[in-house]
């Protein structure tokens, strides 16, 4: 608790009165990210929940400038702004692209890959709530296996596993790739502070649950976030230069995925067999990640 207070004892750059649903992981993610990055930050928001959360014109809940942009342009818009700032000698201004999982893993992946390949000097944060929540809970490529959404309705849950954006981005060998979670604020803030000091493209994938879309009570936000990491469904790790892996959090006791699944309505249809399948996949991925983290260079 004290560590969280220390980490967050910075100026508040997000005002109350925003338009997020109760228990919104995306809103908390922005608040924490801005605590780490500070006032000299420009935020780019493509179509996503944050297009609404920031407030309708002429309102605006952040105390940093915001540029709302088209769905697929978060990364390149940030790059364009950064280029403009640099040519004016305002190199100290950080540009943050803050996009949802659909805007990152689906429609925005081309622009993101382009920015990664050019190693543009921006920070890209994906706040992952595992579906198109703003349009009403449609499946994205970041929706997990067997989850319910309005486009993977009862009887036909999502048949494909979640797209692994962290690995895709890291394959561009950008200087810094990391995962973070609103359930672990001190780790999140540390990572964004670190990203702020690195030149080139920094990608941080934030686990940001959506109680509305996940069919659970809003007060479960932190619990479900922590369970995702304690079950190793969403491990906290970072990758330097796309090759050097470091796991930032090892659960004291790796919890079964059932603990995580049973509190979410979107998984209420799962059979024991299906939960077993998910457990197997999670175990495999966690083992693989540990092997990568142990690799010597």
């Amino acid at each position, binding site marked *: 608790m004290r560590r969280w207070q220390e980490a967050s004892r910075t100026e508040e750059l997000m005002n109350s009165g925003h338009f997020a649903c109760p228990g919104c992981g995306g809103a908390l993610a922005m608040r924490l990210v801005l605590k780490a990055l500070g*006032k000299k930050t420009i935020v780019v928001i493509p179509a996503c929940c944050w297009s609404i959360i920031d407030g309708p014109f002429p*309102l*605006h809940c952040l105390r*940093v400038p915001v540029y709302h942009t088209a769905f697929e342009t978060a990364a390149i818009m940030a790059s364009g702004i950064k280029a403009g700032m640099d*040519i004016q000698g305002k190199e100290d201004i950080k540009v943050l692209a803050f996009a949802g999982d659909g805007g990152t893993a689906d429609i925005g992946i081309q622009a993101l890959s382009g920015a990664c390949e050019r190693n543009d000097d921006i920070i890209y944060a994906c706040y992952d709530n595992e579906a198109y929540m703003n349009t009403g809970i449609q499946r994205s490529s970041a929706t997990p296996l067997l989850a319910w959404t309005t486009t993977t309705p009862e009887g036909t849950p999502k048949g494909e596993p979640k797209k692994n954006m962290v690995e895709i981005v890291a394959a561009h060998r950008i200087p810094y790739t990391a995962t973070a979670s609103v359930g672990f604020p001190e780790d999140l803030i540390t990572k964004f502070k670190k990203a702020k000091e690195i030149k080139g493209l920094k990608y941080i994938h934030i686990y940001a649950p959506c109680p509305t879309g996940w069919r659970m009570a809003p007060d479960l936000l932190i619990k479900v976030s922590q369970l995702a990491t304690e079950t190793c469904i969403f491990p906290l790790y970072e990758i330097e230069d796309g090759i050097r892996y470091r796991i930032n959090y090892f659960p004291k006791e790796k919890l079964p995925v059932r603990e995580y699944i049973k509190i979410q309505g979107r998984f209420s249809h799962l059979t024991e067999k299906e939960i077993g399948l998910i457990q197997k996949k999670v175990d495999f991925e966690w083992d693989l990640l540990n092997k990568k983290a142990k690799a010597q260079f």
Partner: protein
Amino acid sequence: MKLNEITGVKKVVTGNHAVSYGVLLARAQVIAAYPITPQTQIVELLSEFCATGLLKAKFIKVESEHSAMAACVGASISGVRAFTATSAQGLALMHEMLHWAVGARLPIVVANVNRAMGPGWSVWTDQNDSLSQRDVGMIQLYCESNQEVLDTTIQSFKIAEKVLLPVMVILDAFVLSHTSEPVDIPTLEEVDAFLPPYQPRHYLDINNPQAFGGLTSPDHYYEIRMKIEIAHQEALKVAKKVDEEFKERFGRGYGLIEPYYCDDAKVILVTSGTITGTAREVIDEERRKGRKVGLLKIRLFRPTPKDEIKEVLLRADKIAVIDRNISFGHSGIFAQEIKSIFYNAYRKPPIFDFIIGLGGRDVRSEDIKEIIDYVFKKDYPTEDAIFKGVRL
């Protein structure tokens, strides 16, 4: 490459390089572009200018035209002069972000080399790519010669920054883009005096943290759109003034439209782009024979100088619009526009529409002559559009 060797001289350059020189002299600060034939030479030369330090700009080599325009939007809202160039499929891919540039009121300049849309793949010229972007709200200027391309590029930045609207400079594929002509390239000092550094009126400022482009309710949206319309009306005056000032300084002006032998003309042809050059020669020849035929070149397509167009065309008995484009299921696009101008006029001369030269098929002087003969013979058009030279 030295600045004083390539500027302040008369050089033989292609239409594409005329754009590049214009952008160099306008001191664009961020350029973002993606290669596409027949535009590529524009950005090739610009990247050379950037690499040699002649142009102090950031060049973002993006992964698509959609991103090229998005990068320009980002650069422009950061407070700098931004430029991109494209063609056909590339312009179509940019479409969403063209709306963004207009709605955000950003003075970005885009050079579009008119190329026919696929399929089938075509790299040759027609106007359907730029005319498909008619309603996004950009200013559109069509050029006839390489000198006009260079001059219009420089003028475009000034017009754009005065009215806060993006401008499209349009030149025909190959006929201009890859054809060399002697072009007067002004000095940087001369252009600096004409085009001062960009002073943004709204930009991303950490000391004044505003949000741009957020959710806009029906209570506000219409008024914001109305302001774009008002800016277009203003652009008519501004474009004219900028062209006049340019003429004073550089000795070359083009007008928003250019009437050629229209005063006593019985028939006036309406053209845009390089067909104008061919038509001029035919008019000269016809005039020598004593035929009263004139030519009206449309340079500024959006905003449309309706009053000026009407004033010139009302002098004629009949009008023949030459369209290197087609709006399927209707007719040629310039013809529709000209017809709409006359709906409320006290006199409505018959308007003939000739669709010709799609996909870069040659438009020869004989074709223009045949069009003139046809219109002189007929009292009024018997069909909405005449498909000139189609082999069906």
